């Protein structure tokens, strides 16, 4: 048990070092002078140039620059954007809650939809209910999320005029208004995720339903519904938890597209804005932040798995 946890932590540190190094190298190894990239081709003063060279320690060797950048990053200083003059860390901390809300809502919707569909598929295996839901799941898996998003906009905003197509309302503007602007983007993110989840629940549960303890529960005369949701679903919750963790990373990528589509001021949208404005420092900061979040979430899932699964816990 301790060995597993120690291994997970070692791997975490190695991965974090590698990821930060890669992100840093990507920017640092840009062809040409970084000052040109940052300032663009517009007019510049010597003062600007020397202040950038000083900020980025451009006169130091590459490895030393990496170490000092990493040191700053660990203490929450990801540098300042040269376009907006705002600290990158400040931009990120303003944007994160929005993206987190979308991702969490999407996961909740996906789990809520996937469990009944997956359970139904396993319970009615090879019957028409199963083939219909499997077919629907296949289609849902194949529709890119931005297409789902546009379709939702067309349906709910253009045809029925029920929901706003853009205009993000923060939670401080009232829960109702906030949910109104958050429901379409989270649905768009949730569809593909729900398909992945329900596939997993179905195949997991088909295995579980063949176990002896299910047979004995049936022999005791428990109702099918009770057996399905109380006895058979429990072992699947572990694998479901793992895939929820993994999907979080995929969702962070998905939010980039969805936030741009719905003009939501989250992390992904500001990444796209940074890209369009060639705000290198901000691109670097957001990229490294998303990657680190992704790794941390995966590690937490691994740890929980090690703690919760008796088979791993005992070994």
């Amino acid at each position, binding site marked *: 048990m301790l060995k597993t946890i120690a291994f997970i932590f070692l791997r975490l540190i*190695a991965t974090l070092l590698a990821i930060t190094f890669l*992100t840093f190298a990507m920017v640092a190894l840009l062809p040409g002078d970084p000052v040109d990239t940052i300032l663009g081709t517009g007019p510049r003063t010597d003062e600007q140039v020397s202040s950038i060279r000083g900020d980025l320690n451009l006169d130091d060797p590459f490895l030393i620059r990496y170490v000092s950048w990493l040191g700053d990053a660990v203490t929450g200083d990801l540098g300042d954007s040269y376009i907006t003059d705002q600290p990158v860390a400040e931009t990120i901390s303003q944007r994160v809650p929005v993206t987190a809300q979308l991702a969490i809502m999407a996961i909740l919707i996906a789990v809520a939809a996937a469990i009944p569909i997956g359970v139904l598929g396993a319970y009615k295996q090879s019957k028409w209910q199963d083939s219909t839901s499997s077919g629907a799941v*296949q289609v849902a898996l*194949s*529709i890119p999320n931005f*297409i789902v998003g546009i379709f939702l906009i067309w349906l709910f905003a253009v045809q029925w005029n029920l929901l706003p197509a853009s205009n993000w309302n923060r939670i401080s503007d009232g829960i109702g208004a906030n949910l109104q602007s958050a429901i379409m983007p989270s649905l768009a993110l949730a569809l593909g995720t729900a398909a992945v989840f329900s596939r997993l629940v179905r195949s997991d549960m088909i295995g579980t339903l063949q176990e002896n303890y299910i047979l004995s529960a049936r022999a005791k005369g428990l109702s099918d519904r009770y057996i399905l949701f109380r006895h058979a679903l429990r072992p699947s919750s572990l694998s479901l938890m793992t895939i929820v963790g993994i999907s979080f990373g995929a969702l962070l990528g998905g939010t*980039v597209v969805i936030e741009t589509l719905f003009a939501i001021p989250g992390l992904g949208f500001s990444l796209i804005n940074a*890209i369009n404005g060639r705000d290198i420092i901000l691109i670097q900061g957001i*990229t490294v932040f998303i*990657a680190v979040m992704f790794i941390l979430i995966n590690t937490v899932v691994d740890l929980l798995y090690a703690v919760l699964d008796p088979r791993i816990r005992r070994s």
Partner: protein
Amino acid sequence: MATTESNIDTQYLVVPGGTIVAPVDDFVVPSGVKPRRKSAFGVFREMPIVVKLGVFWLFLIFVGAIYAQLDVRVFNGSLPLADPNLQLNNFNPATGEFGTATPLESPSWAHLLGTDALARDTFSRAVHGSWVSVTVAVVSVTCGVIVGGVLGSLVGFVRGKTETALMAGIDVLLAFPALVLLLALISIFEVRDLFVISFVIGLLSIPAYMRVSRANSLAISNREFVVAAQAIGTKKLTILWREIIPNVMPTLIAYAMVAAAGVIVVEGALSFLGLSVQLPTPTWGNMINQARRDIKINFGQVLYPALILTFTVLALNQVGDFFQRRSAHRGSSL
């Protein structure tokens, strides 16, 4: 001889639960007689109807992509397909006349999928757009299958420290959300060339291919025929080349189709964000993005490229799943 003439695959009994049991007779393959491989047409006939439709659709897309490129590169636009970038309501220097089309037309015989906001022929743009998707898919699959397939088979067979080190590196790369890494790479280096974008996507997809091929190579390395080859002193490289890789490939190619679907979606998302190839080159993603501004007037212009993209992804997933099931079946009967 009758047993060797007919197809080996069909003679295995599938018992409920998915395990495959072979009749005892079939374990005795007469020496010197290789079980006949099914022809491509034979495989096609055995497909369920949905998969057949998928193959047919993919074939159409492929032909469309080649046709569009021939039109541009060889025939200078003289093949019967509208110029994808010509604004059909404006003065046309080639004919010396003003076009008669209007922006955002509905489908008609003259313009099969109508026209977009700049009065360009949407059908032609969709056909030309397929070239981008096909290129991205083909380049990344080639990178993945060749580099990822060979490296994965190698480390799965050789094991040892090389494997540990390589797979740890792979884990690090897989720990990055691919779309974000791709965005950062493409934006920082300002890449707009189709082949460079395809290649970057291809490089990023290698780790996943390596994982799949390594897992299969691990399983195959323990099979009797590999042990037998080792016992008679076959060189390791020969075993890898003649025993391991040919048996890893069917599963890997099935995976490649599903991965290609993912890659096409990623390129679609990039185009949609305006970060893929330079405008006005048509791609399905940027067609959707441009048309969404006029969603209130003409939803069709969003719908058609969206449907084409979705059908392509669905078709690749279905065909990939079919081959995956088939190779799993074949693998257990090896």
